[in-house]
């Protein structure tokens, strides 16, 4: 089986990026939109074909899905084992991600044709979208850590460019910088982790790194002895790598950029900050999962707790926000925390690896319904020209399609029985219950909170008070509603994909059955959350104001996102810039610059003083020539015998 064609999935968006980007102004907007959409559409079809070939025809060998290197090219060689390659790897998670990324990206491309219509930088937007798709797909199929790192930074750059798309708005510029700097800072940890791991193992290659032996150990020798602060080198390396993942996936405490990133156009939020880039951290942990699970259980515990804390933290904040996109942003953070948590409670061995599958399952379903929520929110914002929930209400009458599709996504994320979120969330909860009770309790609370804040959002936007609008809101154009309907379809039915047959940590399918003992109580808790929201927000009422008044201190703290941003500002502005940087600046100016100036003065002086050597008189040249020869003769015959 020749898999080389998979290369086209990655290269198509790159070609589109270059074409639209280079032609930019000389290309009609319509053509750019069609070209971008067609190219990602082709990539989508190729991904479907690849998925079919992989999962149903060629991927399974001896009862397990194999890692297939579809394409590989050596790029930079350090030693015989340590070299940076660029390639395409196919295994259950990468093929799954290919599907997720191309699906959501295609929907967002179609949607953007309508949403961005008439914007000044329409072509620029589409070229950036293509750049992002290329980078994300390259990340997904990376055969080695370093390739992943390269594309990791590329998605960071495209995210930066797209958040700052409205570059005339100071807030958008600030948000793009914040996102870039925060994730870059996290990537420093990632890079150190990569270097540590490759230094000790001598390879970047995923296949070699995660190869397991028959008895369940890793084939590659890992530095597992205790070495630094009670943890082994490999644990440190993986914690540092996870730091990069936590930065991209907006995990506590590196989450501060995600809410601000909502300054970008809404399709961008749907694609990058809900469905694809932000789950890169989850994907990274999943990619290295055998090492986490076998060689570095400490690091995996870190992943679990960071996930659990982030999901609770974000869910609490989401209950108090008014900006519709920010609610969704915190919800995203919370749901990604769920996925991390699920990975954290999983193990590599057969029978206890439900968490891994659950995490990947939730990643997929979440991508669908969260993209739908964002695109729906975009549709609403398009109609109302405001992000604030306070400006909305009773929209169901004006925007029926958006209302229905948004409703489906709302039910899916709340875990309404029969919809996709219900199944994937259930698997996560089961996995958590089997392995760690405190985490399980947190997960259940989060499930209740999720149902509450999503219902609060849904009711106050589509029901609630009858707002007076300057312009009567109207339903969005077809280009925007069709992707909504397609995604709604996925939000309903993605839950029926038997993930345990396809995506498992070992590659071997396992049997799983539905756990009613978890599903029923959790569903009830979700209903309670929805019920409370219904009472508070279905009709305009005084109760929410009263509740916030009664809890004013707590409420303010949560509303200000626990003042995390303020803490960051204090550390950077007051301590780093105010004290450390000031000293370094002084040192730079007075010691380093002065030394350099000194060198320059001396050099200049010498240069002036030897000018006489070049007199232009040929007899003098001859004299110096002969003197030189004689000098060397004397030195080497008499001094240097």
């Amino acid at each position, binding site marked *: 089986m020749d898999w080389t064609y998979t290369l086209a999935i990655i290269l198509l968006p790159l070609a589109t990026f270059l074409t639209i980007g280079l032609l930019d102004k000389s290309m009609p907007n319509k053509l750019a939109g069609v070209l971008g959409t067609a190219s990602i559409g082709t990539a989508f079809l190729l991904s479907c074909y690849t998925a079919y070939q992989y999962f149903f025809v060629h991927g399974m060998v001896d009862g397990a899905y194999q890692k297939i290197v579809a394409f590989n090219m050596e790029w930079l060689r350090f030693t015989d084992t340590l070299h940076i390659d660029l390639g395409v790897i196919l295994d259950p998670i990468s093929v799954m991600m290919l599907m997720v990324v191309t699906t959501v990206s295609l929907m967002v491309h179609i949607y953007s044709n309508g949403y961005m219509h008439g914007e000044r930088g329409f072509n620029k937007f589409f070229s950036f979208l293509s750049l992002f798709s290329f980078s994300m797909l390259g990340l997904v199929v990376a055969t080695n850590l370093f390739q992943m790192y390269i594309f990791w930074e590329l998605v960071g750059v495209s995210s930066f460019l797209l958040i700052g798309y409205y570059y005339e708005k100071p807030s958008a510029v600030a948000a793009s910088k914040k996102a870039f700097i925060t994730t870059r800072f996290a990537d420093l940890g990632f890079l150190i982790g990569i270097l540590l791991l490759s230094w000790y193992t001598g390879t970047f290659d995923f296949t070699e790194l995660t190869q397991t032996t028959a008895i369940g150990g890793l084939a590659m020798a890992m530095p597992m002895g205790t070495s630094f602060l009670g943890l082994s080198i490999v644990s440190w390396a993986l914690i540092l790598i996870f730091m990069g993942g936590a930065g991209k996936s907006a995990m506590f405490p590196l989450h501060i950029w995600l809410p601000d990133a909502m300054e970008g156009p809404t399709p961008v939020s749907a694609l990058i900050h809900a469905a694809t880039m932000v789950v890169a951290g989850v994907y990274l942990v999943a990619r290295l999962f055998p090492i986490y699970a076998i060689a570095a259980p400490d690091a995996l515990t870190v992943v679990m707790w960071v996930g659990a804390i982030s999901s609770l933290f974000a869910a609490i904040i989401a209950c108090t926000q008014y900006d519709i996109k920010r609610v969704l942003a915190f919800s995203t953070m919370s749901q990604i925390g769920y996925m991390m948590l699920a990975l954290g409670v999983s193990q590599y061995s057969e029978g206890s690896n439900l968490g891994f599958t659950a995490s990947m399952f939730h990643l997929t379903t979440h991508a669908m319904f969260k993209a739908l929520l964002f695109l729906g929110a975009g549709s609403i914002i398009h109609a109302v020209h405001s992000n604030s929930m306070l400006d909305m209400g009773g929209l169901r009458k004006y925007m029926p399609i958006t209302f229905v599709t948004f409703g489906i996504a709302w039910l899916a994320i709340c875990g309404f029985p029969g919809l996709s979120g219900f199944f994937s969330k259930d698997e996560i909860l089961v996995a958590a219950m089997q392995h760690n009770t405190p985490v399980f309790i947190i997960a259940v609370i989060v499930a209740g909170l999720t149902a509450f804040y999503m219902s609060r959002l849904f009711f106050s936007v589509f029901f609630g008070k009858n707002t007076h609008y300057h312009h009567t809101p109207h339903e969005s154009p077809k280009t925007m509603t069709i992707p909504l309907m397609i995604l709604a379809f996925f939000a309903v039915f993605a839950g029926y994909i038997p993930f345990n047959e396809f995506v498992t940590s070992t590659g071997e399918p396992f049997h799983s059955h539905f756990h009613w003992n978890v599903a029923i109580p959790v569903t009830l808790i979700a209903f309670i959350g929805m019920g409370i929201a219904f009472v508070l927000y279905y009709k305009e009422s005084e109760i929410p104001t009263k509740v916030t008044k009664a809890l004013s201190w707590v409420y303010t703290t949560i509303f200000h996102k626990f003042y995390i941003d303020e803490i960051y500002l204090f550390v950077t502005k007051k301590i780093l810039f105010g004290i450390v940087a000031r000293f370094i600046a002084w040192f730079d100016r007075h010691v380093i610059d002065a030394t350099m100036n000194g060198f320059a003065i001396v050099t200049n002086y010498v240069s*002036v003083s030897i000018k006489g050597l070049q007199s232009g008189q*040929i007899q003098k040249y001859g004299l110096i020539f002969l003197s030189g020869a004689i000098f060397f003769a004397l030195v080497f015959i008499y001094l240097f015998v």
Partner: protein
Amino acid sequence: MNLQSFLLMRHELVLIAITLIVLIAELATSDSRKSIIAPLALCLFAVHTIIGFLPMEYGSLFGGMFNSTPINGMVKNILNIGVLIVLLQAQKMFDSEINRGKVSEYFIVLFSTLIGMFYMVSAGDFLMFYIGLEIATIPLAALAAFNRGENKSAEAGIKLLLSSALSSGVLLYGLSMLYAANGSLFFDALIHGNYEITHLHTLALIFFFAGMAFKLSLVPFHLWAADVYEGAPVNVTSYLSVISKGAAAFIFTVVLYTVFHNYADKWQPMMYIIAILTMIVGNLFALRQNNLKRFLAFSSIAQAGFLLLGIISGTAMGMATVVYYILVYVFSNLAAFGVISIIEMHTGKTTISDLNGMYRTNPKLSLALMLALFSLAGIPPVAGFFGKFFLFTAAASVGTTANYILVLIALLNTIISLYYYLMPVKAMFINKNDSPIAYFKSDVYAKIGLAISLTGMVVVGFASPIFENILAACFGIVGL
């Protein structure tokens, strides 16, 4: 010796044939049709360059006086490419009224020097080496004085002739001592001869060294260079500072590595001192120049100092870095000279301050010059960076403290060189000027020449097989 073994001298024979064709063409054409000679010679030389790349056999001729090896072939090809670029840049010169009658003279003399260099590069015997060296040098004086009407050009010619006579004398003196001590001038006999190293040998080495140092314009044997470079026509200067120097550097390395292999403890410290002197003096002089040609002349002296870092290691790796650096240097320096000659021919401007504000009027030319200077300064990603990087690696790989210090000094010198290489860039891009050089269209030939050099500068840096091929060809040289 059969007919086929003559094919070993393919480069030389084809070049001789071309020279004769140009000579016949000169005799056969009437005055009104002389204008075809320059394009004809150029085309013939392009064909010769391509022929050089065809696969060939290796071996030796004339009882070992003439050797054809893979690395010789490579060096000749590098020189060919360089000369091709020089010829492309020279085409415009023949448009002028004064030069019209001297076209074939230019080509015949230049080709003769190249033939000399080829024989020098392939020499297996000091006699052959010396004949090649002289063929390569004496006609150069005629080339330097090509603009006979100008005092400066004539001065350059006579200075080159006198200085090279002196250096040849010293060199020959050294060779005669070698003959006196060993009774042979064959490289092979000198390598394998079983003898003790006496003072006579050392003196021979030093005089040989001084003679080659003259060709390479190493301090303190360099003083002729600046005056000659300034006075000669630009493309002759570029020929002198790139092609002639490249050929000399190569054969110098070969002789040191083979014949003087056993004297390494003598020539290495000598080279150490000269390398440091050359880098520092070359840079310090270049720092103060405002004349573009003089500036490049001094910078090329400093560049030769860097080149010694590769030679000093005494390993095959070192030799490969030298050849690689010559290749890089051919492209970078010829690109810089190309831009300068275009400017000089079209506007007559020759100083750095004339470049002020040129980016606004001639952006492409400015960018080309910037890239060339970046490459000379060793700024990544252009090839110059890799060239310097490999040279420094070769010097550092010897592993002695002294060599680390040498590399450190070389690094400090690159900083100085960075300063003056950036001066023209600053002039073009940053300095304000109310009347910058007006926009002009450069001729097609010069454009092709620039395109080749710029492409080479980028490709050579990135294509790793090039260096690997050179390295592979360097193994197997006697003494390594």
